[in-house]
């Protein structure tokens, strides 16, 4: 149990609602966050399974929401991320990275192009634990004429699962129909401007909804009034994203890792790999050419004992890597992990051993995602 002093922790706009729903709150990213709910449908495994079968409501209001706008915003932001934004159509979303000069990962984020006829504007969702550093980094490197707004007073919820679209339609008619995976839109609801993006971090179809703190409880109530929707906590979000093979900042991604070894080269837009013009390009161009020393891989572990972050990976006596996230997969029924291992061994089918409490657990390098993604890409 945690002895962490909760006095300095911020409260989510939905704090009271979570407690009323039976949430167990824990300190995370400077907030008191629901890790799981109690009651007959609560618990990490039940919430995890419900997300895979139906739809779950996650509160992700701890994440940072930023709006960057002004003439030249596209170019200014492109100087800081490896993804191409000039070709991103308004209403479309791209996963990209904030990198330092050495190509180390400062954060991973979602960028939505919200530009209108004569305004260049981007909406960014960044990690909760890194948002203040991200803001400082962006302020330092964006030109003065570019405006950055931190939507600090707004909440963000994620509705995730195969029935998320049907459930969301009952509250916002027509919205699910308008969007496919990695598209966002804005509209008015009960006098408030709402942003809806068809994305998430569970591997399922789903939406992230950006809403004012004054309307967030009404929205949560309206969503869970639908029998298909139940609240779920951070614990299930973590096991879902692990099954989906999605890296978590602070664990699988850090300033010590670069996008090539993290197996995120898809986030380095091809045309910009050569032309450069973004922070960290020099080091990354080199890594792309020579290949990374280590690579992020998925591991399937024999037996039932999970390997956690920090466990060392071996082939025989040779230490070849380290686990960065691991746990028991409720969907698959066996333990899985992400690890960085030497590039030469980062090949599907390689047999390794993971050391846990002086025992060696046999494991195999397997492709990720561990559980297939079910994003909605249109009919």
């Amino acid at each position, binding site marked *: 149990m945690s002895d962490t002093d909760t006095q300095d922790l911020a409260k989510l706009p939905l704090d009271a609602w979570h407690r009323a729903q039976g949430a167990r709150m824990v300190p995370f990213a400077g907030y008191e966050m629901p890790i799981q709910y109690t009651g007959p449908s609560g618990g*990490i495994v039940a919430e995890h399974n419900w997300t895979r079968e139906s739809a779950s409501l996650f509160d992700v209001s701890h994440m940072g929401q930023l709006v960057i706008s002004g003439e030249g915003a596209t170019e200014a932001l492109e100087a800081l991320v490896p993804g191409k934004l000039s070709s991103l159509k308004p209403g479309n979303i791209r996963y990209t990275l904030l990198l330092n000069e050495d190509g180390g990962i400062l954060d991973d984020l979602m960028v939505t192009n919200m530009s209108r006829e004569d305004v260049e504007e981007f909406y960014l969702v960044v990690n909760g634990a890194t948002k203040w550093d991200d803001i400082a980094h962006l302020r330092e490197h964006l030109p003065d004429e570019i405006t950055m707004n931190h939507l600090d007073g707004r909440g963000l919820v994620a509705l995730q699962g195969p029935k998320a679209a049907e459930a969301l339609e009952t509250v916002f008619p027509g919205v699910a129909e308008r969007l496919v995976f990695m598209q966002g839109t804005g509209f008015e609801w009960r006098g408030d401007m709402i942003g809806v993006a068809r994305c998430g971090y569970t591997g399922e179809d789903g939406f992230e909804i950006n809403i004012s703190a004054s309307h967030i409880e009404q929205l949560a109530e309206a969503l869970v009034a639908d029998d298909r929707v139940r609240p779920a906590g951070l614990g299930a979000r973590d096991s879902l994203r692990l099954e989906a093979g999605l890296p978590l900042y602070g664990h699988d991604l850090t300033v010590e890792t670069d996008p090539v070894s993290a197996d995120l080269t898809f986030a380095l837009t091809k045309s910009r790999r050569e032309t450069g013009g973004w922070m960290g390009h020099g080091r990354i161009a080199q890594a792309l050419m020579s290949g990374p020393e280590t690579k992020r891989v998925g591991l399937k572990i024999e037996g*039932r004992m*999970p390997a956690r972050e920090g466990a060392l990976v071996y082939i025989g006596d040779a230490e070849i890597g380290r686990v960065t996230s691991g746990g028991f997969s*409720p969907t698959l029924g066996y*333990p899985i992990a992400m690890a960085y291992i030497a590039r030469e061994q980062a090949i599907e089918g390689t047999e390794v051993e993971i050391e846990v409490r002086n025992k060696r657990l046999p494991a195999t390098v397997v492709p990720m995602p561990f559980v297939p993604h079910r994003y909605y890409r249109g009919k």
Partner: protein
Amino acid sequence: MARYFTDEHEWIDLEGDLATVGITDYAQEQLGDIVFVELPEVGSNVDKGGEAAVVESVKAASDVYAPITGEVMEANAALEEDPALVNTSPEEEGWFFRMTVADKSELDGLMDAKAYKAFCDEL
């Protein structure tokens, strides 16, 4: 049979010279869904307060300490097949191991059911 509780949330049933050890309902509730239990080897000696078992929930691994000193005589094989027994029946079918009691005076400092309940209510 007498049942004792520790402030680390283990329970001990004493029957003759043999003690059965498990974790309490309160503890399993705090841990959440249990997916694996690592039990001590039969024949090994455990010391009061020393690590005796590990409980893995979906989220994390937690140590379970030996409540008394003695030798492990039996480990609950049912937990290998179904670790969730610790969640569904923590104080009966989900027992962890049986051990000898080297020094009965170690039991003196432990709580009875009423004292343990009061202890949990304070947490």
